[in-house]
């Protein structure tokens, strides 16, 4: 059964149709590459799934039952995690502080609970270890490299038992060496039965890890097919509109 299913989802901002009538489903342990030009509706679609705003029309099913997210926390509680394009990190906090932001571990009794920094550091260290990242829990994000920041943002998604992880341009701002690391992590998420949506401009990355590819153009879904039956040339054509649909 599909872990996540979108049926005829639309979103318009005033007269602008950002996403129109998109059907989309995601199986557990599947990596789907979501592609499209700037303004094609990728980010809007991600934000709908992540609960940033409700769709104007259509419905979202999570493991077969309809869900309505009013805020990102709702989606997160339901098992949908997002790694945002700008990574949504606070430069003035430590790596561990960012990983546990808004779900801090606490100790003591209500209402006298204090942050359990030692435990958060230990858990973060474990997560970074799994990611084979050199990031230290106590390091300030403002002093980190692009790859380390990515590791922090990804470590966040591993905190909860996410069913679906949406990654918005995870490889856009990092070095070649770290792209390989991030793609490796993506595979590891998939092997654990997590469904991953990879939103990316970088054709080689998508073709390296994705099982299936979905192309959006001007808010419409113009392709949804297995990676083996497609080619970078075809996808480029679909993105630009040289090929109408596939």
């Amino acid at each position: 059964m599909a872990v996540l299913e979108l049926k005829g989802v639309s979103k318009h901002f005033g007269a602008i149709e950002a996403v129109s009538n998109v059907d989309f489903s995601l199986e557990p342990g599947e990596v789907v590459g979501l592609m499209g030009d700037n303004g094609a509706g990728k980010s809007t679609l991600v934000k709908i799934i992540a609960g940033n705003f409700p769709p104007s029309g259509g419905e979202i099913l999570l493991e077969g039952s309809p869900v309505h997210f009013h805020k990102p926390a709702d989606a997160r509680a339901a098992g949908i995690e997002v790694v945002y394009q700008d990574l949504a990190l606070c430069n003035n906090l430590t790596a561990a502080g960012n990983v546990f932001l808004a779900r801090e571990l606490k100790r003591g009794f209500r209402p006298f609970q204090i942050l359990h920094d030692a435990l958060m550091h230990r858990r973060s260290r474990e997560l970074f270890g799994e990611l084979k990242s050199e990031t230290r829990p106590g390091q300030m994000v403002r002093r980190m490299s692009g790859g380390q920041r990515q590791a922090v943002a990804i470590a966040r998604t591993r905190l909860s038992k996410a069913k679906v992880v949406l990654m918005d341009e995870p490889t856009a701002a990092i070095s070649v060496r770290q792209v390989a690391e991030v793609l490796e992590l993506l595979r590891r998420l998939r092997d654990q039965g997590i469904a991953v949506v990879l939103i990316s401009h970088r054709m080689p990355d998508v073709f390296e890890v994705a099982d299936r590819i979905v192309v959006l153009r001007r808010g419409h879904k113009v392709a949804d097919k297995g990676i083996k039956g497609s080619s970078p040339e075809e996808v480029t054509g679909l993105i630009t509109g040289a090929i109408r649909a596939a």
Partner: protein
Amino acid sequence: MSTQTKTPPSAAVGIEDYKPDVLPGFGSRLLAEQSFWVTVAVVAICVVMTFLQPDSFSTADNFFNITRNFAYVGIMALGMTAVIITGGIDLSVGSVMGLVGVACGLVLQAGYPWWLAVLVSLGVGGICGAVNGVLVAYVKLPSFVVTLGMLAAARSIAIVVSANKMIYDFGPDGDIFDDIGGGELLGLSHMIWLLLILAIGFGLVFRFTTWGRHLFAIGGNEQAARLTGVPVDRIKLQAYIVCALTAAIASIMVVGWQGSAINALGTGYELRVIASTVIGGANLLGGEGGAFGAFIGAALIEVIRNSLLMAGVDSNWQGLFVGVVIVFAVLLNRIRGSRGD
């Protein structure tokens, strides 16, 4: 990871991403703290003044005066720090202080007990803070504009409610109230003791609670905090309420100390309060600041003011010196910031 053997980065890729994985030690972290340097400045001025004016500066009386005079500014600076950490500002603390003072005086004048005056004062302060907070956090107006409006509005209400008269007849509980604000314990004013307690309290809250962590997160990257699920609007509202409550507490103490309430109480204090937090290392862009910084920043301003007075400098020069210190503090902050990145 520490268990992992470090392989040298390949020459072809990622050199620019390879940052040494070292954390600064305690010593260098201390040296990077603005509040540390401000503390050094306070101590240095005191040492110099002790040599220059041993008979007037380094006396128990003067120490009592200095600590009391910066205590109420420091109390407000603590609340201001919470707001400034979120990236906001509260220009209304001086006027809120004035309005609270009048409300407090009227309750006492009407013959009600001291604790009711305290509760009403905190209530009035809390309402002012809530109005600020709702307009900033939920209506999404700039904090500068909202609190500038409150600066004018609260002062105006204070003048109207007090019928522009001084309130000094504090009724049966007047003596108790005078003792609350003007009394002393172990040779120091109640006011400085209260500042010390509140500073420790705020310091612990900033450092060890989720609320404190979220204040910093909002100031660091509000959008990120929102996306990850930090209740940004609620916490901002609470920060403005806390700030106004510290103004109310300061007002209660000053009204008790002075033994009277005037509607001009706190006029211009917003500048001293904001200056204290900034001198102590708070960043007006948000994400940086601390309780000790607010404390020591307030202390520095008062020590400079007092020293100039003792040295016989015309008191009209005080503004110039304080102004120079503020600008210098921001400059220092900038230099530290550029070195840190």
